[in-house]
């Protein structure tokens, strides 16, 4: 069974609600769309209101609206096999639907400029270009190297120059000049937010864990959409205090926690609650994840804003090659003391699925712990079978218990 709900969640709702409502005031400031790990700090420093369509797509997935609207994008020629965030979002736009209606908006905010970073995938660019054509507004961005072994100074220099090259267009659209001091300030706030969010996630190293990956996917909202804003830091200070209190008083996110898992890959937004319940029924806590940790940017540095933004975007897990990814997961497995790893093979997100080049097998052998591959999708629930998922989880938990017993026996 899952433990008590976090009381901070009420504040989270207010914080996120306030952000969404502010998007409706867009006539007072230009709007920039930004991919989730795009140069948000630069946009904020120039006075833009920043909208993150991946967050919007996740809302469509969580509300299970996605499957109703995706066919509209498919009918436009956007394949069922490409990013279901893209197809959900474009489908919803064409259907005139948005969860933002709950916050007084009638549609997603119309962009004055769209800014992507391909460090995660090409799909964000294709997605933004659709809107760029729709609204006849500029689509600019960073074309980042991918599958990087070691991030070199040359890599950083190349991306930093691309970020700098965005500035003239962004200044022209916003009508504001970039103020270096303001950018440094925003980067400092972003760094602080990242640090606080990392500390929150770190509390799950405790036994029992005070919160799980499933809680994290909700709690990460401010780290995603309010990067560079003081509101995000304020929220994470209060969340961290609650989590530390839970650790101190041994309040468990999963009652009777007996097994601990690591999650790699995207969430299945439309099945978050069901999966949280499935794992909790077996006394299993998913205590850490690559996904939630992807919004921790220790490289950000107010003394060298643009180069540090470039380095942060290149050091991102998703942009790295297999070996650094495996080393990262190994560190996480040790830090959070987990019994097994769940890999989500996300059908429409190959770049965020680490199951297709034998990583689960290599890591299981290297770390001596079992892994499970769950077939599913971030938004397209047609690609996930509840029945198969539950059966696989049940069998995996059984296997973990056996593995642990035999390890103890040895």
């Amino acid at each position, binding site marked *: 069974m899952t433990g008590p709900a976090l009381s901070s969640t009420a504040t989270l709702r207010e914080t996120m609600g306030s952000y969404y409502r502010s998007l409706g005031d867009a006539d007072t400031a230009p709007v920039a769309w930004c991919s989730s790990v795009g140069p948000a700090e630069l946009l904020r420093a120039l006075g833009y209101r920043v909208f993150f369509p991946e967050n919007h797509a996740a809302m469509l997935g969580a509300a299970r609206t996605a499957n109703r609207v995706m066919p509209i994008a498919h*009918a436009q020629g956007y394949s069922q096999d490409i990013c279901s965030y893209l197809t959900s979002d474009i489908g919803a736009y064409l259907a005139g639907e948005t969860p933002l209606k709950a916050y007084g908006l009638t549609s997603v905010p119309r962009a004055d400029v769209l800014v992507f970073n391909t460090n995660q995938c090409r799909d964000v660019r294709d997605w933004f270009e659709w809107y760029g054509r729709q609204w006849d507004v500029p689509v600019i961005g960073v074309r980042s190297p991918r599958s990087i072994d070691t991030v070199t100074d040359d890599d950083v220099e190349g991306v930093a120059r691309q970020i700098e090259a965005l500035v003239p267009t962004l200044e022209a659209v916003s009508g504001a000049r970039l103020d270096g001091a303001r950018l440094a300030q925003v980067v400092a706030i972003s760094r602080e937010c990242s640090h606080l969010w990392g500390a929150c996630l770190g509390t799950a190293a405790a036994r029992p864990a005070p919160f799980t990956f499933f809680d994290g996917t909700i709690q990460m909202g401010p780290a995603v959409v309010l990067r560079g804003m003081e509101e995000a830091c304020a929220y994470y200070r209060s969340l961290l205090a609650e989590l530390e209190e839970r650790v101190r008083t041994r309040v468990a996110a999963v009652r009777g926690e007996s097994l601990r898992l690591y999650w790699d890959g995207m969430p299945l937004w439309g099945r978050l609650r069901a999966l949280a319940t499935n794992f909790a029924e077996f006394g299993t806590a998913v205590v850490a994840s690559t996904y939630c940790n992807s919004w921790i940017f220790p490289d950000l540095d107010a003394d060298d804003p643009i180069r540090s933004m470039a380095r942060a975007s290149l050091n991102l897990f998703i942009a790295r090659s297999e070996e650094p990814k495996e080393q990262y997961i190994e560190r996480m497995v040790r830090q959070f003391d987990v019994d097994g790893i769940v890999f989500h093979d996300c059908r429409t997100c190959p770049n965020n699925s680490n199951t297709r080049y034998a990583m689960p097998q290599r890591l299981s052998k290297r770390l001596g712990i079992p892994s499970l591959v769950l077939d599913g999708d971030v938004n397209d629930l047609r690609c996930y079978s509840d029945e198969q998922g539950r059966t696989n989880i049940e069998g995996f938990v059984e296997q973990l218990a056996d593995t642990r017993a035999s390890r103890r026996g040895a």
Partner: protein
Amino acid sequence: MMPDERARVVAGVDAGTECVKAVIVGAGGRVEGRAVAPTRGYFQACVYEVLSAALDDAQRTESDLAGIGATGFAMGCVPGATLTATDAACHAAGAYHLIGQRMTLVNIGGRDPHLIAVALDGRRADARNVRRCAAGVGSFLMFTARHLDVLPTRLQELASVADKPAAVSSYCSVFSSTAILERLREGASREEIALGAMHSIAERIVELGGFEDPVYACGGVVEYFPGVVRALQTLLEREVRTVPDPIFTGALGAALKAMELAT
């Protein structure tokens, strides 16, 4: 009637994955006889069976045939065919012969539903199939009937009295079959499942896009499961009409093409 006048008939055979259909077409493209039989692995035997039955229905003999047009999955297995042509071309020709105008034609056969843009002159201007994973809709309906423990022909009757469709995935025919068992275990009624299966097929077609009025539907699934057309109409929010004798549209088109060749 003069013997040479009687000879001016042709046959059209549509050898599909679920059914083999044959028509006998006389002067002016008038259908004189028709027959359909389930497809079994012995394609040539099936073709003989339906061709004989269609000739009987038309009160004709094989010697009256001036040509045989063949189409469908097993068109290469039609003995004596004087012409073979694609599914899309034959369905476009057959539907245009009956409707007489440009249209978007949705052909829902047992294998892969496809969308055909029929031009002003009756030729296929464009055609698109559903994805590989979404194909096999005939087999999918057979599996659905098996899970509901009814004959396939009862699915329509069940669907017609359902209040709402059960959620049956449309991504992949195999996934969809498993989803049906899950819905049944959760307590969905047989009626809801039957309607859900029809919606599942309609969803796969909607994803093809490019519908322009008027929209017509044909094919074996349309003949036996008109609920699919109603589901399509609901999802598209536009009228979808049915071509007369929809299961024979392809065979008719093949016959018309054979007639064109013979004259």
